[in-house]
């Protein structure tokens, strides 16, 4: 018989060790999955985790790493702040779309402007688009007590439909020969979010993601607001007695996460993607949830987790090309990672004892 005994405090060692154990367990389980699909497991793992960094053509793939990690880290940093407070914004995908739509709308509205102010204005509008979209669940939660989980998630589907409407309607490229999708912002110099150092994948969105990591670190560990957020998440009653106003926390956390997700959408549409199309969003908003948990809701952890998750995306693409591994296999892989992480987390909070249960 196995019994669990609650630890008085979470174990320091396991707090850091569980993500690593979870990654190793996922590699093993993933290898089994690949073997089931008839692919050589060890080679597949090598292609996914090793080749993009150190294999042939690694130079190209390292750049892609930042392109994929940027939005993941940016979105996850915002989400983690809310998760710490027990505020579950799972609609980052929608906020990401709205940020992209708002900024692309501005750029296309003034097309073909040549101004140094356009790009900063797009950044503002992107953040605002995501923030306002996140204000819907926030204010409904504050005013009526409506579940922010369900509302933010429903709004993802609304945003997806709005995106498709825009791509086929108002934002459609007038010179696009009837194809859906907007003008390509990559060939629109004042709106293009270009690589700061050519070929590295380092664009303004990646810079913003690093700034977000530092900013949320300061917020959570050096600022009274971060303290309030953590207290509210770990001991809601104590937080109330300490004068924390839950409504303000809800608005703050959802607003921050929404703005970050909107920014990620803005940098994506003006950079790597370039275009508003109905398939513009690729699930960064959902993968960022995994990144936030894998990073233990800690800014530095999220930075590392974002890079790792980006690696699985790129490695997955590579494995698709070289081994014919279906792209969905990577999605399964990412889902398994979250499962293992949540499962192994029991070691952080509980001591495991083998043997008979003690009589109470």
């Amino acid at each position, binding site marked *: 018989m196995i019994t669990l005994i609650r630890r008085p405090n979470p174990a320091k060692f396991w707090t850091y060790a569980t993500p690593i154990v979870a990654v190793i367990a996922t590699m093993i389980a993933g290898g089994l999955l690949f073997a089931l699909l008839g692919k050589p497991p060890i080679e597949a793992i090598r292609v996914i985790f090793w080749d993009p960094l150190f294999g042939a053509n690694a130079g190209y793939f390292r750049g892609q790493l930042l392109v994929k990690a940027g939005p993941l880290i940016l979105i996850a940093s915002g989400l983690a702040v809310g998760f710490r407070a027990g505020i579950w914004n799972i609609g980052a995908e929608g906020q990401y779309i709205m940020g992209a739509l708002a900024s692309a709308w501005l750029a296309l509205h003034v097309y073909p402007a040549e101004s140094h102010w356009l790009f900063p204005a797009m950044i503002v509008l992107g953040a605002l688009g995501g923030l306002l979209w996140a204000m819907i669940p926030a204010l409904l939660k504050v005013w009526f007590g409506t579940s922010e989980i369900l509302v933010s998630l429903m709004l993802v589907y609304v945003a997806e*439909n709005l995106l498709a409407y825009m791509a086929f309607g108002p934002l459609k490229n007038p010179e696009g020969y009837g194809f859906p999708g907007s003008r390509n912002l990559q060939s629109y110099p004042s709106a293009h979010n270009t690589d700061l150092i050519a070929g590295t994948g380092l664009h303004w969105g990646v810079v913003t993601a690093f700034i977000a990591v530092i900013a949320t670190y300061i917020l959570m560990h050096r600022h009274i607001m971060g303290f309030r957020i953590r207290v509210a998440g770990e001991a809601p009653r104590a937080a109330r007695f300490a004068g924390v106003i839950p409504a303000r926390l809800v608005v703050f956390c959802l607003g921050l996460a929404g703005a970050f997700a909107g920014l990620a959408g803005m940098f994506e549409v003006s950079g790597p993607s370039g275009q508003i199309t109905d398939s513009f969003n690729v699930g960064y908003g959902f993968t960022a949830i995994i990144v936030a948990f894998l990073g233990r809701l800690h800014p530095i952890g999220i930075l590392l987790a974002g890079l790792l998750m980006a690696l699985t995306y790129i490695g997955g693409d590579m494995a698709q090309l070289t081994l014919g591994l279906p792209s969905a296999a990577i999605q399964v892989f990412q889902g398994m990672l979250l499962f293992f992480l949540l499962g192994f987390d029991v070691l952080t909070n509980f001591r495991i004892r083998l043997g008979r249960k003690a009589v109470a």
Partner: protein
Amino acid sequence: MTIGGIDIIGLTAMLMGASTPVLLAATGELVAEKSGVLNLGVEGMMIMGAVAGFAAAVATGNPVLGFVAGALAGALMALLFAFLTQIFLSNQVATGLALTLFGLGLSALIGKGYEGVRPPPTAKLDFGPLADIPVIGPILFSHDWIVYLSLLLVAVVWFVLRYTRAGLILRAVGESHDAAHALGYRVVAVRFAALGFGGALAGLGGAYLSLVRVPQWTEGMTAGAGWIALAIVVFASWRPWRVLLGAYMFGGITALQLQLQAAGYAIPVHILSMAPYVITIIVLVILSALHRHGVQAAPASLGKSFHASS
């Protein structure tokens, strides 16, 4: 009978079919939540049910086996969730999300070879002369057996929760797991059973989607139906008959939206497709506004981990 180009009888008949996947999933989730567990993985269980049911029905040529496989797949997913949240005491919200993300990925992987395949048809039940009664005939007696099964399940869940000892224990576990544990009930076992039942129903709903409603397999075909089922449980204040009402209202909106598209109204398709989600939000807001100062309808232990500490 048509109003504004919309056939009202056809709409009402369509509504029952359109509601069935969500009704099944919401009824299952109601039972799980009544036992005190919030499983946000409904979407993941539904889509696994959809793909497993489809694959089994195509392989065997028998839609009934497809529904069985769908329910089994949903139940297996739910047991995975139960294992993590009840034995390993993981966070229920995060684990539910993981279940959804995992289910969406795994179903896409399994479903690769099934795109564009047609499943064996599910016949409508033959009610003989009953089906020829004007108005009532096409509305009530023109469906397949799953539609009637879903109604029966609502009634059974209502009866069991309200009038049987098993239902009482389930509710006790959901209201106060510590008190139920002290009385000698096996909290974890009850929750495993409730979650498994909920998963089976979600899987069945998913299979109905891929085998009857659409009927084909496409990646991500549940399109938020699982989340809407979760919203309906809240809307219903955790009462079975209100789940039925909520699901049929939602089905009505979906059917109306499809009919408006077909009737050629000058509203863009994408704007119409938003309607079910927007209306779900509006209904949730109205409900929470009404309950703001009223009694808390949710089971008191909902979402809390149970650990018998001594």
